[in-house]
C-alpha cells in the first residue's frame, strides 16, 4: 500500500475506534441511569411504607377524644376565649348591679344578645333633693369616662319624665 493509503486507513481506524467508544459510553450511561432509577424507586417504596406506618399511628392517637378536643382548642386558641368573653352573663349582671348601686338607677328588662345589653332604666329625684336630671347627667358623663367600665354606653336618644326620668339604654360589650 502507498503512504497516502496508510494515512487514510489509520484515520478511518481512529474514527471507528471513537465511534465504538461513544457507543460503549452511551450504553454505560444508560445502564447507570437505569440502575440509579431502580435504587430511587426502591427508596420511594420504603418512604411510602414508613409514611403509611406513621399515618396509622397518627390515626390511632387521634381516636382519643381528649386529643381531638385539645387539637381543636389549640386551633381555636383565640376564638373560643373571645366567645367566652361575650357570654360572661354573670359578669354582666354583676356590672349592672354595680351601676344601679353607684348611680341610683332602677333597671328593668335585662336583655342581652349579640354583644349588646339593653335595659329600661329609671332615675328618681333623691330623698335629699338631688334632681333626677342631675343624677342622670352624672351617670352618663361619669360612666363614659370610666376606663374600668365593662361596657360602652351607647347614645341615649329619649328621656321621659322630669322628677322620675325613664329611658332606654344600650350597653355594648368592650
Amino acid at each position, binding site marked *: 500500500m502507498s503512504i497516502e493509503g496508510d494515512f487514510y486507513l489509520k484515520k478511518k481506524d481512529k474514527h471507528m475506534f471513537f*465511534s465504538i467508544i461513544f*457507543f460503549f459510553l452511551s450504553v454505560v450511561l444508560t445502564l447507570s441511569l437505569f440502575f440509579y432509577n431502580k435504587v430511587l*424507586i426502591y427508596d420511594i417504596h420504603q418512604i411510602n411504607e414508613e409514611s403509611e406506618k406513621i399515618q396509622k399511628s397518627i390515626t390511632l392517637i387521634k381516636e382519643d377524644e381528649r386529643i381531638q378536643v385539645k387539637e381543636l382548642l389549640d386551633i*381555636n386558641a383565640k376564638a373560643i376565649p373571645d366567645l*367566652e368573653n361575650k357570654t360572661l352573663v354573670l359578669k354582666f349582671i354583676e356590672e349592672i348591679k354595680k351601676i344601679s348601686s353607684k348611680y341610683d338607677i332602677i333597671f328593668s328588662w335585662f336583655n342581652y344578645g349579640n354583644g349588646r345589653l339593653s335595659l329600661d332604666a329609671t332615675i328618681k329625684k333623691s330623698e335629699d333633693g338631688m334632681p333626677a336630671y342631675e343624677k342622670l347627667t352624672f351617670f352618663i358623663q361619669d360612666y363614659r369616662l370610666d376606663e374600668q367600665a365593662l361596657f360602652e354606653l351607647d347614645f341615649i336618644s329619649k328621656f321621659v319624665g322630669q322628677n322620675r326620668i325613664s329611658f332606654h339604654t344600650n350597653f355594648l360589650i368592650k
Partner: protein
Amino acid sequence: MENIKNNKFISLLFLFLTFLTLIVFTKDVFLDLQENIDLKKQLTTQLEKSKENLSTLNTLRTELSKWEDTDLEKYISPFSEDKITHYIHSYVQGNPEVNISQISITPWKENEYGFIEGHISLDVRVLNENALIDFISFLLKDDSEYKIFIESLSYNYESWSFNVNIPLTVFYK
C-alpha cells in the same frame, strides 16, 4: 480501499447505534429519573412533617395522661337527653327558688370551631334575681359537667318571682 470502506461503514453504524441508544433509551430513563428524584424529595419532606406531627401528638398524649383537665373533660361529656335532664333536675330538685317548666333540646350539628354544638332551651320560674344568678352559676361553674355558653338572656328585673328562658349552647365532641 475495501478496508477503508468497511471501517467507514462500521463507524457510521456505531454512531447510528449510539444516537439510537441515546434517543430511544437514555432519554426516557433520564426523564423517569428526574421525576423520581423530585418525587423522592417531595415524599421525604412529607415524611419529616408526619414524623413531627406524630412526635407532637405523642407528647400531647403523655401530657394529658399525667393530669385530668376538667375543662377538657366537659367537651367529651356525653350529650344525651337523659343525662342532660338528670343534670339540670339534680340542681332544682328540692330547691324552692327554681322551678323547671320546660327543657327543649335541639339536635346537634358541627360548628365553625370543629365541635358539635347542641342547644338547650330552659324555661324556668325563679323566686328572684339572686335565684336566677345561682342557677346560672351552677350551669357555668368550673367543674360543670358540660361546656356551656349563654349567648343571650332576657328577663324582667322588676318582677318578684318571674319566668325566664335560658338558652344554652353546649360544645362537645
